[in-house]
């Protein structure tokens, strides 16, 4: 029998364990629909704010030896515009990523999606390159508590907190998020980093400091998934440098119920989802696993 690669992240059920990570390609329903048909199990939107944001001037993305560095600056059309755009969605499994500074920002945005078909929300507590949001929120346990509690009381769909490596202990952010009612954790966001051009002696990104993604951060992300799933009873989505089926399996063995994919699109473009799904399926067949959940976290027993 063919293995079943559908998976469940808490109450979120998806047909395939590979999601599109937030920040990547996520501004149009037509693109989501295409990526879903190309094999993505779920699509996480770009982080939406109350108002439209233009983001930073270019350069916003630059390649480094082992990945990519970006400071796009959370450009997005704003939650009201976006909610309207996806309002007719019936089939595409969308997770809406939200970014804000205070509970009221999130309350406003959740209201926009009340009558829209979505799988859940992912709260961006970890963008490393925009002031007063993202990591600056994630690094403040009191604020994390207030935001998660407020969102939880108003949302009709599950809530995921996306955490990253900021200036405080990320496990403390996870603990507070879990105690405040979050349904799952995505780990990790990009890692604060920088690149300087030696010929011109200038930082390359217009924002100077950005977030590092791709193969360089994968071992860090695997460690975080392993730590979170060891310490807390919460479903985890692994994110950071997934570019092959082996990477996806590694995250699952560390404790992830699904993975998110971003930078790997540069090399493999939209075929990356089906390629990884097929690889996972073949691995399961070879190793005699019939369901994803049989593999989740089994590296922890050693």
């Amino acid at each position, binding site marked *: 029998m063919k293995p079943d690669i559908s998976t469940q992240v808490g109450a979120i059920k998806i047909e395939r364990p590979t999601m599109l990570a937030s920040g990547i390609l996520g501004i149009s329903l037509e693109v989501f629909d295409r990526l879903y048909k190309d094999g993505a199990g779920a699509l996480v939107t770009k982080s939406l704010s109350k108002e*439209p944001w233009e983001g930073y001037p270019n350069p916003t993305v630059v390649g480094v030896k082992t990945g*990519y560095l970006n400071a796009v600056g959370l450009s997005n059309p704003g939650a009201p515009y976006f909610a309207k755009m996806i309002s007719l969605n019936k089939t595409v499994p969308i997770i809406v990523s939200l970014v804000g500074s205070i509970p009221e920002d999130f309350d406003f945005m959740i209201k926009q999606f009340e009558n829209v078909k979505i799988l859940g929300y992912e709260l961006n507590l970890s963008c490393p390159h925009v002031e007063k949001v993202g990591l600056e929120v994630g690094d403040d346990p009191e604020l994390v508590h207030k935001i998660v509690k407020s969102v939880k009381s108003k949302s009709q769909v599950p809530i995921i907190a996306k955490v990253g490596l900021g200036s405080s202990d990320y496990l403390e952010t996870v603990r507070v998020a879990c105690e405040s009612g979050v349904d799952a954790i995505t780990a990790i966001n990009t890692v604060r980093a920088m690149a300087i*051009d030696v010929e011109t002696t200038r930082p390359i990104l217009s924002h100077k400091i950005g977030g590092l993604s791709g193969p360089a951060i994968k071992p860090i992300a695997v460690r975080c998934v392993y730590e979170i799933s060891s310490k807390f009873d919460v479903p985890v989505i692994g994110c950071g440098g997934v570019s092959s089926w082996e990477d996806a399996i590694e995250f699952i063995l560390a404790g992830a119920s699904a993975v998110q994919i971003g930078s790997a699109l540069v090399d493999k473009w939209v075929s990356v989802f089906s390629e990884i799904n097929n690889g996972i399926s073949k691995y399961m067949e070879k190793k005699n696993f019939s369901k994803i959940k049989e593999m989740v976290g089994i590296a922890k027993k050693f």
Partner: protein
Amino acid sequence: MQRNFDAPTIVTIEKIIDETPTVRTLVFSDEVLSNVLPGQFAMVWIPGINELPMSVMISQEKGKAAFTVRKHGVASTELYSLKLGQQVGVRGPYGNSFTVKQGKILLVGGGTGLVPLIRLLTFLKKTDDVTLLIGSKTKNEVFFEKMANQILEHNKHQVIVVTEDGSYGKSGLVTQVMENLLSETKFDAVYTCGPEKMMYKVVQLASSKNIHVQASIERMMKCGMGICGSCCFGEVLACRDGTVFDGKYLLTNKEFGYTHRNKAGMLENY
């Protein structure tokens, strides 16, 4: 060291050619960009200012490439105003390219949209019968006419300039002249790049005669490599799936000729 195509390689402006009062060509040495395919672009970093997608212009000197820029926004004006010896960063090339056909070839360009078409001319066979239509508002905005004639000197060819105010060449819209040509001649392929309203009309006209037509489209771009999503155009990404698309596809894309996205990703009308 192996070149990282996604990180800027620094090049120096070696030559500046004034094409019109608002358009300049900046020439630099770069082996990789000197050999790109027609339609491919580079991301051009103007240090301290911005980074822009630019179609890669040919240079008649080996190992050199160029950018032809019109000053209109802040960043393009900075690029236009660079002096000899100043540096920019280039990454890429990115994007697909025109499919080179043979036979009777028609190219329709407007403004700096001529850049990929001029490169395409260098990929045509000597046996091709080539017609290039250059659309412009007025006489002093016409450029590349002489260069196109030089490139095509061994081909059967014609370069027709069309100005909207009739101050040079034929008078009217380039698409009107194209319509007349289509009624006289059976072309094997049509290629276009320029203002989107113009390309829309070109694609419609060619498609109505069942002629193979391709257009190179432009959208707001940030990463240039298919991850940020800024340049999404229906379900495709201009930077990654394009910038060249078949007319058959374009006519199914409801954004073509009508809308594009701003920096925040909101659709705006042309």
